[in-house]
């Protein structure tokens, strides 16, 4: 009941100064929007980078003129300095009369990719370009044969994945199943490794000694340079964000102070009626909360829209909007508007009503 009355009177006050409130909501939206778009973009960039490196952070690659025995994967996994081991098998199979590339991966490694639909055993994923060309939809049945014309093995299409480059034209299936299909039991084509960077050189030496028959190459150079570029861009974004947030705190604070000081006599009057400072402050805090919430909402829309626009023009592709950006927008918007309201509210409620009513302020 009391809260309803509080909201009633605050609502009246807001309706009276819609223009000011709108300006304030807009200022909050701008800074929240910037924050959100920065976060979406830098997260998008990271994802993008990790896609291009297949598994984010893979810094070594093992290849061989021939297929690699899968028991090597086991041995590599047992080495402490190696954090991740990602084996892949490449092959070709006949689909509707043409040969297409098929990649075999372990189920757990597939989870890293951007996929619509689920990764399941007994099913395949299609690259987006292949899916488009063949008008493939999730749920379709895919018959593969080797060589063309021989008996088909049936797979269910359980999803579409997106990747750059030639893999867009490929199918991905479970490693074991591809091995069976190709008759290459326990074989893989390449193994990507994530070697602990602290002991990278030493580990590479040891690997070369232990597996002289394999080619072991660092892919660290690419990874590092992309990572440092990313860091630089993120830092730049961060600096811009700080500047804009500071500017908008000042703006929001200024407008807030102006709307509060506008009501100086109203406040003095409330005090003569026996309002405590807390009661008066409650009005303004509620107003700031409403402003903050509206600003968060606007900011989130603004932020995601501009991030997508930038992503589309820079990466030719939309980026995912992380779910946590919503609570982040709300909390930053609330903090911004409430924080900038607190100083003027404290200052104004500290005045004695007699001084205000004399018209001295």
């Amino acid at each position, binding site marked *: *009941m*009391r809260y309803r*009355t*509080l909201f009633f*009177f605050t609502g*009246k*006050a807001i*309706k*009276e100064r819609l223009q000011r409130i709108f300006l304030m909501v807009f200022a909050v939206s701008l800074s929240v929007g910037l924050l959100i778009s920065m976060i979406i973009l830098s997260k998008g960039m990271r994802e993008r980078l990790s896609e291009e490196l297949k598994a984010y952070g893979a810094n070594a690659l093992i290849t061989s003129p021939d297929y690699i025995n899968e028991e090597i994967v086991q041995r590599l996994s047992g080495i402490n300095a190696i954090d991740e081991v990602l084996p892949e098998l490449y092959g070709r199979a006949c689909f509707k009369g043409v040969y297409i590339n098929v990649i075999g991966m372990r189920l757990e490694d597939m989870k890293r990719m951007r996929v619509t639909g689920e990764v399941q055993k007994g099913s395949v994923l299609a690259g987006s370009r292949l899916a488009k060309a063949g008008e493939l939809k999730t749920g379709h049945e895919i018959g593969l044969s080797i060589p063309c014309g021989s008996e088909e093995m049936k797979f269910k299409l359980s999803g579409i994945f997106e990747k750059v480059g030639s893999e867009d034209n490929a199918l991905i299936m479970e490693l074991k199943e591809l091995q069976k299909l190709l008759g290459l039991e326990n074989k893989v084509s390449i193994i990507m490794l994530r070697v602990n960077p602290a002991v990278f050189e030493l580990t590479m030496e040891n690997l070369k000694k232990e597996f002289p028959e394999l080619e072991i190459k660092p892919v660290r150079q690419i990874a590092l340079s992309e990572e440092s570029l990313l860091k630089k861009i993120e830092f730049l974004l961060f600096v811009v964000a700080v500047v804009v947030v500071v500017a908008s705190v000042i703006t929001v604070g200024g407008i807030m102070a102006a709307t509060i000081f506008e009501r100086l*006599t*109203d406040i*003095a*009057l*409330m*005090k*003569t*009626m*026996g*309002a*405590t*400072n*807390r*009661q008066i402050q409650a009005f303004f805090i509620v107003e700031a909360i409403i402003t903050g919430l509206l600003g968060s909402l606007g900011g989130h829309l603004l932020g995601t829209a501009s991030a997508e626009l930038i992503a589309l023009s820079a990466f030719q592709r939309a980026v995912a909007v992380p779910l946590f950006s919503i609570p982040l927008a709300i909390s930053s918007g609330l903090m911004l508007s409430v924080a900038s309201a607190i100083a003027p509210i404290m200052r104004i409620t500290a005045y*004695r*009503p*007699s*001084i205000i*009513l*004399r018209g001295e302020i």
Partner: protein
Amino acid sequence: MIKVRGLKKVYPSAVALRGVDMDIQDNEWLSIMGPSGSGKSTLLNILGGLDYPTEGSVSYDGKEITTMKEDELAVFRRENIGFIFQQSYLIPYLTALENVMLAQYFHSIVDEKEAAEALKRVGLSHRLHHRPSELSGGEQQRVCIARALINSPKVLLADEPTGNLDRENTRVILELLGELHSNEGFTIVLVTHDPYVAGWGKRLLTMEDGRIIKDESFHS
């Protein structure tokens, strides 16, 4: 009873009160006159707990208010004091009814019927949903009276309440105050420059240069 003893108020630039002593009885109608700058408003503000004196004491039925903290004073005001000023301070974006309800809100809970009833008693039942800007000066002042009395205060403090009104509206306001005063039995302390207005009281204090120089009672 209100007891004022040795009340002084010193500003860096001026001395507003130089030692005021007085007793105000319950249900009394007291007028205060005096030249501009003699300290009338300062005295009224301290009486109502809107300001602190530099020295001296003010007690209501034995309860000292000059040592109360701000929040205590706020509670004291909402329970005991109604104010009216020369300007009819009303919240511009609230209707007459809502302005009265705001005083209820700070006091306890809002009661629309009671607020409407209070406006009816000041003759504004046809103006409940008008904003201050849609009311005449006299009507605005009557809203202020309804608001000041909505929580049944013991004391009504009025600082030149008719200062902006013409004779006819002044009479209406004073008649209204007189009626409410005799019905509800609150104390009135009313500051004015107008001898006609002062004449409505039963007692007249005259101030000059921060002191009370004359204390007269009228018997009628």
